[in-house]
């Protein structure tokens, strides 16, 4: 058994040694420019990705103001700036084929620049103005707000998006994640341009923000650019968000009727904190559980096209199971049986070995673009340390089988189910079984 693990570790090392990424693995560098953190990775290709991260996400605003950070970033990246009025802003970006977009999620917001090398200087000049001098025009604000409300409504039509909202609101009730990052019609309607200006002032400081740049950019020139970028950012103060671990010890069921061709079901369970050994063990466990649900629900029983199991490595982590099915009773029973099985019987060494091997492929697929790399580095930094991103495969490979088996026993003790669909098909006893 031990031999197998060693083989896999060696394979991973070999991959690193042979890869282009291996050459640059150690060149990811953290630079502090006038008190502001920059994570920099030079590459040889023709694309540049830069992301300005704002830490905090849903921790940055109250439930009543949910959606405010996304709206702020929408206005900042769509309404023009002091130097570039909207018409010029759009014309120049279109002309260069560059994009500057902003969005805010559960743990962070970011303003992302994407361009080809030759247009980097000109795109950066606009990026700099977006960050420092966005046009906070009231008419533009109202237009963006209306568009966002329309998007929220459109999203509600999509059962997957709506189920996600149901599940997060239920599992994280009264915690930061019960805020909808896109807001609600009610919260957005009450926001004013002054609220946005206040939010800008609150989050835009050197301590709460940092930058990631991946591209063929000269280091010295980048530092000069960054100095100019942060010239007017205040020092500020930022207390990192403390992870709130879920404590689900019994199963519950939250339902909503919707007439559709099938039923959408998601179950949320506890999960270990990101970056810990337990979190890597849980990722392996849920990778294997995903395969088992595929086998049992889809291949053997034809109960669903799309069963899934995944562990979400947010600051406030959670484990998830998901299925769409016309036979919820049977599908949920299989999910519960499989979870019980992994808790009692555990996983085989071979399964864990194979899972580690799959992670190598998907990890590298996630490294193919500079934008994916800047995202990966930035998100890891938001959650504690950017190095977790580049050490991911090493960290996964270090996990022994016994830890994978132990972590599911420790964390999977109840499921908060959310169900969207035909309520006549719900047998609550099935959902509410003990794990």
């Amino acid at each position: 058994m031990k031999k197998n693990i060693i083989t896999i570790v060696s394979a991973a090392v070999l991959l690193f040694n042979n890869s282009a990424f291996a050459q640059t693995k150690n060149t990811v560098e953290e630079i502090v420019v006038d008190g502001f953190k920059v994570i920099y990775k030079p590459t040889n290709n023709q694309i540049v990705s830069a992301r300005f991260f704002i830490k905090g996400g849903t921790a940055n605003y109250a439930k009543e103001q949910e959606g405010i950070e996304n709206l702020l970033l929408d206005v900042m990246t769509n309404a023009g700036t002091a130097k570039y009025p909207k018409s010029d802003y759009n014309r120049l970006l279109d002309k260069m084929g560059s994009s500057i977009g902003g969005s805010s999620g559960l743990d962070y917001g970011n303003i992302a620049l994407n361009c080809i090398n030759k247009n980097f200087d000109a795109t950066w000049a606009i990026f700099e103005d977006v960050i420092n001098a966005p046009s906070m025009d009231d008419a533009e604000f109202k237009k963006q707000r209306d568009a966002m409300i329309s998007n929220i409504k459109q999203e509600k039509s999509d059962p997957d998006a709506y189920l996600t909202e149901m599940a997060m609101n239920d599992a994280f009730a009264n915690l930061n994640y019960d805020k909808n990052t896109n807001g609600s019609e009610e919260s957005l309607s009450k926001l004013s341009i002054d609220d946005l200006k206040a939010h800008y002032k609150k989050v835009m400081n050197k301590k709460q923000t940092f930058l990631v740049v991946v591209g063929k950019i000269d280091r010295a020139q980048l530092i000069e650019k960054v100095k100019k970028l942060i010239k007017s950012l205040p020092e500020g103060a930022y207390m990192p968000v403390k992870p709130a671990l879920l404590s689900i010890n019994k199963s519950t069921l939250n339902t909503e009727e919707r007439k559709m061709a099938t039923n959408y079901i998601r179950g949320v369970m506890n999960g270990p904190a990101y970056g810990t050994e337990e979190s890597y063990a849980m990722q392996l466990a849920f990778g294997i559980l995903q395969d088992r649900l595929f086998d049992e629900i889809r291949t053997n029983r034809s109960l669903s096209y799309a069963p899934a199991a995944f562990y979400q490595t947010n600051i406030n982590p959670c484990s998830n199971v998901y299925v769409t099915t016309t036979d919820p009773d049977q599908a949920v029973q299989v999910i519960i049986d499989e979870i019980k099985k992994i808790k009692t019987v555990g996983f085989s060494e071979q399964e864990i070995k194979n899972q580690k091997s799959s992670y190598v492929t998907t990890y590298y697929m996630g490294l193919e673009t500079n934008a994916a790399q800047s995202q990966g580095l930035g998100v890891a930094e938001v959650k504690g340390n950017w190095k977790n991103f580049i050490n991911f495969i090493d960290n996964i490979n270090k996990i022994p089988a016994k830890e994978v088996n132990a972590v599911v026993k420790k964390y999977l003790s109840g499921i908060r189910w959310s169900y969207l669909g035909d309520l006549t098909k719900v047998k609550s006893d099935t959902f509410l079984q003990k794990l």
Partner: protein
Amino acid sequence: MFKKLIIIIGASFVGLSAMAQDKLPDNFFIKKLNNGLEVLVIEDENVPLATIEIVVRNGAYTEDKDYNGLSHLYEHMFFKANKAYPSQKAFLDRVNELGISFNGTTSDERVNYFVTLSKDKLVDGLSFMNNAIRYPLFDTVEMRKENPVVAGEFQRAESNPFFGLFDRMNKEVWQDNYSRKNPIGDYNIIYTATAEKMNVIKNKYYYPNNSLLAVCGDVDHNKVFAEIEKIFGDWAPSGFDPFQKWPIPEFKPIEYAKQVVIESPNAQVPLFMLTYHGPDTRNDINATYAADVFSYILQQKNAKLYKELVETGLAFQVNVGYQTAKYVGPINIIMVPSPRKIKEAYEVLWKNINEWDSDDYFTDEQLQTAKDQLGIQEEFNKEKPSNFIHTVTYWWCSATIPYYTNYEANLQKVTREDIKNYVRKYIKGKPYVMGVMLRNGMRKSMKTDEFFAPSLSMEEYTMSFNKDEINLAKEKNAEKLTSLIQWLKINPNANISIETYYHDGEKKTMGMDRYNTILKTLTDAGIEETRIIGTSNKAFQVKKMKADVEETNALNRKVMFSIVKK
């Protein structure tokens, strides 16, 4: 290096004759095996992975209604038992063992299967694909189990209310050949599929001479060619061209413009969709380039369309796209209007469409920006080899590899005149299908019928009158008349004939009076009288039992409509 280049050009000359004249990118290498299998290798050392893709010229366009959805089911069966891995479990164990990330897609004109794995396992990956493509078992039990899974995929699509609109639109746009643009297929056909039907597909399309094998990633093309020759070299060709043997029927043009209304309790915002039949790569290749450039002009935020619809707050989104295809590429326009300004948004959209061929609709800078953007987009596409390979294989199916390799150069040649010609040939004044998705109740509350009423067939417009009356009192008839007026407005070149009837016991002038009532309603709504011809007829009276007489008479107090063919 020079020697290598010569060999490659030689190979391309044999393999893809059109390719010989076209310069391939430096990292593209192509070859054709003796059995007709075309092989494309794209070297890219970005990450230590290799993606292997097998592409077959199959998909919805090869399906009549009895096979609709079976290319898709076949695609699912690829990932099941085969000679080397005799159960799906064995197949998936091998997937896990090799650390493979896999998937497949079925679209109108392509079925592709792809795996990504460590570059060190490339040979294992090729062998794995060889077994799956050549030796599927179509195990009866696995088939039976897979049918509901594909149905489940269908149900998921159906659960999104917009699917209802897209599907209905597709039926109207593609008419008798709807199945050939409907890759997800027909639920009942999928559910009742058999291994025999799978073998029919295999025996028609699954041959090396109808397939492309592409490998992209951190690989050496010479080694890949050699391995492929060893593994796939003995795959027997069919000896026929399936598209000559079973030609794809031509799509019937849309004859008359049509409006479609879909109401759903789950639709939260209104959404318009407008579709035209566009050019294709068999018949009008230059127009396909003009179509792409024009779509990119329209999506610029300073474009007139965006400014007049989105900047003014009339709409939240507007998007114009053309899908390149070998068999009639659709031009789709999608707009999410502000619910409060739905009629205004609709009118401004049409105002813009009618201006699309005017000299000053877009600036020279916007034209150049569109061309440059398309080029830059390609740079972004190339950044992700595991995705980029899909782009290239799409062109192999719906055009040719040279179409793709010369794409940027040809875009740069597109002129304002080319775009005007494209608009005039495919869009302006051409019949279309336009649909709107509304939440239940919106149709009435927003009075959308006043400008957008569901079109009916001429037979369905038949209306009836009350005895001795010339007015169409019933609400149902009023709805039909509103719809007919809309139909005449969106088909300004169509003329109709109206036949009115009266029966025994009614005044002889009643038929004519009824005709005049309809005529006045139409002309009051702005329809020119010259577009309408009418006749009044006495209904043939069938002698029946007394109890049935009134029922028969009621049917005879009718007015019927038909299109006057020119």
